[in-house]
């Protein structure tokens, strides 16, 4: 009734990452333009060196607050007027900060771009930082912190990062800041952060979509030429791990029916030369649905709805982390299976079939990643943030294809540190504690 024979693929089709053009504006700002004429949309994205890694340790959260305040009033308009003006054009200017950078972005119909872009430029270069908005956003952050205490997934993420980094590392503190730091942030702190971190020569403006290079350049010059540079000291982040020894950490959550697990350690920076080996290795370990950890914990044992491993790539060393949520009564079993998969990864070559799966997957989905104007703009931003060569996307598939079973084993042995793994469990401590201690994964600490 159905066709038994599996079809063979047709010839591999060529795909090129969208062409883009780079130039420098008169004020020192970088400009990147990727004209894409698929649909009538343009994404505008400004990426600037104002990420949370720049937060003073006593003022963690100031990068996020500063970004969040950009569209709360800029140029001649207050926050409400600005929102109203842009939303009537069918768009909005979003602003946020991650660890490495702050991003201001909007996606808009080309016919509305000429009205919207001057406001976009104001948000980036003429924010007014109203006191009332600062107080409101601070209150929202404090509320969010309260929420996280009751939300096991986010709590597990936050505790994991706190545990793996050395005390005092910016990476060990929440990106949005702690209750103490956020409470202490003043309008002067925000203005000072903006004055020193948001400058043209550390900012790149990206256009992706239905626009020409000439038009993009003209718009950028016209509305941004007034923004003039000052020198800035560059910052490096303290990304040292807290411990070289294995540890188990239980964060009690009474009556929890599941344990949220985070297992991992501090990894390597984004610009590490083993990036491709690590990426493919991670795909096989826990990055794909058909990865070892997911197939083991989900499909073989039914312990979980899903399990994955991943690297959080940053300028400094971000975390390597395996995440899953398992039924409470199988917590120790799930950890044991996960550790066994890590060991297997570090001691045996992966099979040719596993290698083929990971290489074909990463290479095959490459065009699917860039269907939208905003995804192309974000991809260009990554080139800027991590200082990657302009042909990085053009050579991506060749670089993926050069990974071998030997280089994967090398990556696993060099970059996964079994002895330094931190095992973080948010769960029902009364139910799981005994089996966890008995299993002897490492010294157990209960965090109350």
């Amino acid at each position, binding site marked *: *009734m*159905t*066709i*038994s*024979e*599996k*079809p063979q*693929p*047709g010839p*591999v*089709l*060529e795909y090129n990452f969208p062409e883009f053009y780079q130039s420098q504006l008169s004020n020192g700002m970088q400009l990147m333009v990727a004209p894409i004429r*698929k*649909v009538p*949309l343009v994404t505008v994205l400004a990426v600037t060196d104002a990420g949370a890694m720049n937060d003073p340790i006593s003022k963690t959260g100031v990068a996020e607050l500063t970004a969040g305040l950009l569209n709360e009033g800029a140029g001649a308009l207050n*926050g*409400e007027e600005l*929102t*109203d003006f842009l*939303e*009537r*054009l*069918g*768009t909005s200017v979003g602003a946020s900060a991650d660890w490495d950078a702050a991003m201001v972005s909007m*996606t808009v*119909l080309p016919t509305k771009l000429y009205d919207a872009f001057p406001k976009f430029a104001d948000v980036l270069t003429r924010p007014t930082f109203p006191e009332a908005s600062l107080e*409101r956003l601070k*209150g*929202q952050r*404090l*509320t969010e912190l*309260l*929420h996280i205490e*009751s*939300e096991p997934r986010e709590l597990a993420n936050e505790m994991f990062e706190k545990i793996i980094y050395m005390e005092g590392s910016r990476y060990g503190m929440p990106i949005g800041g702690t209750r103490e730091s956020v409470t202490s942030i003043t309008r002067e702190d925000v203005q000072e952060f903006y004055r020193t971190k948001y400058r043209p020569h550390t900012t790149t403006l990206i256009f992706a979509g239905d626009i020409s290079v000439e038009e993009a350049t003209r718009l950028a010059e016209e509305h941004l030429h007034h923004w003039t540079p000052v020198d800035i000291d560059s910052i490096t982040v303290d990304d040292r791990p807290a411990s070289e020894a294995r540890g188990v950490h239980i964060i009690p959550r009474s*009556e*929890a*029916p*599941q344990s*949220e697990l985070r297992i991992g350690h501090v990894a390597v920076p984004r610009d590490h030369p083993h990036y491709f080996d690590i990426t493919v290795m991670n795909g096989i370990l826990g990055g794909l649905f*058909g990865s070892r950890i997911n197939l083991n914990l989900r*499909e073989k*044992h*039914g*312990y*979980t*709805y899903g399990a994955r491993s991943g690297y959080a790539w940053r300028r400094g060393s971000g975390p390597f982390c395996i995440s899953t949520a*398992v*039924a409470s009564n199988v917590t120790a079993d799930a950890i044991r299976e996960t550790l066994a998969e890590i060991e297997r990864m570090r001691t045996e070559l992966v099979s040719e079939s596993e290698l*083929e*799966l990971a290489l*074909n997957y990463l*290479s*095959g*989905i490459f*065009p*699917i990643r*860039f*269907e*939208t104007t905003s995804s192309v703009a974000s991809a260009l931003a990554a080139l800027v943030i991590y200082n990657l060569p302009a042909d990085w996307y053009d050579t991506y598939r060749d670089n993926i294809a050069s990974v071998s079973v030997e280089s994967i084993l090398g990556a696993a042995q060099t970059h996964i540190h079994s002895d330094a793994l931190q095992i973080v469990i948010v769960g029902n401590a009364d139910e799981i504690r005994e089996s966890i201690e008995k299993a002897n994964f490492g010294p157990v600490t209960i965090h109350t």
Partner: protein
Amino acid sequence: MHIPIETYRLDNGLVVTLSEDHSAPIVAVNLWYHVGSANEREGRTGFAHLFEHMLFQGSEHVEANEHFDLVQRAGGTLNGSTWLDRTNYYETVPSNQLALALWLEADRMGSLLPAMTQQKLDTQRDVVSNERRWSVDNQPYGTWWEKLPALTYPKNHPFNHSLIGSFEDLNAASLEDIAEFFKTYYTPDNAVLTISGDIFPEEAKELVEYYFGNIPRGKGKPPLPDMSLPPVFGEELREIVEDDVNLPRIYLAFRSPAFGTEEYYPASVCGAILGMRKGSRLRRKLVRESELAVSASAYTFDLPKGADLLIVDATAREGVSVEQLEEGLIREIDLIHNQGVSQAEVDRAVALIETDFMKAMQQAGERADNLSKFATYFGDPNLVNLEADKYRSVTAEQVTAFAKERMGKDNRAFLIYVPKNKSDSTND
């Protein structure tokens, strides 16, 4: 923006929708089965979704988990999802792998049962039980999406019961249930296949005929009971849930016109005026001005039969009581109910909806899913090209009339989450 669409039907009843776009060498294959939790029989809540999991456990010519493996090995992405009255399965693959995606979908549509075993069912039952714990039981407010339909649809109405299902009903599901459900609902005449992206329609048609043409038509499915409901609840509905949360949250639902009807569009715009983006009423009034809430939003379930739900939710800011939050929310709802909306508000909402729609349509997978949706629900994928016009033609008078008719005290369902400890101390 106009999406090119060609649609036809195979002899066995399978509706096929094609949309050609050569902007990237990728293609989306998207299959909607017109079955969801609404079709479950008593004592089998959660079965449609559990069944969706079983569709990834292999079929006559495909091993367990091989579906995922082969698609990812081909450089594609895939998944499936279950909703109250439909279930979808989808792949986006390099366009030279179109035949593979079709073969996989056809094999499980045509010959699933030889691959079903008790052990696979037991494992997926465990997986789904963990999905339930993860998304419902161990998440603050996680029970809302089974409590709200239970509160707002009459008992025995097909939309009343839990989509994810109870542990008890999941445990009761058997291989016989699998066979029965498969034969009844997973038939070509109860499905829509959409292929969108880098295709040449004549080649695609040949492939579809080759892989799906021999699958026999089904014997028809039992009709759903009459799902029509009065336009309003008739009274204020209210449930208070003491949960492991730190912040009070209110879900306020209104019975609203079924998805796709003429009346749906003013309702959808009304939702956007209330809760879409920063400039919406609830965000402006509750989050920015009175600072009672830390977040607020509005959305519809998009149910095409009987009656839909328009839902607004608001979460209290630290230190704000549930009473204060409710008072603030009701003030806004009373205002829109009594005084309606302005044309400027309608224009803002429609402009945002239009841009969002355009953004979504950039992706082959989203395009395919929308075509399948309109073909499945209304028998006409071309309706997708009328969406923008339908939104543009909504007037302030229509939205005002909707708010007048549907947002009064006789059509409000409150699902209110309060922190456990807080209510303990009030009881003292």
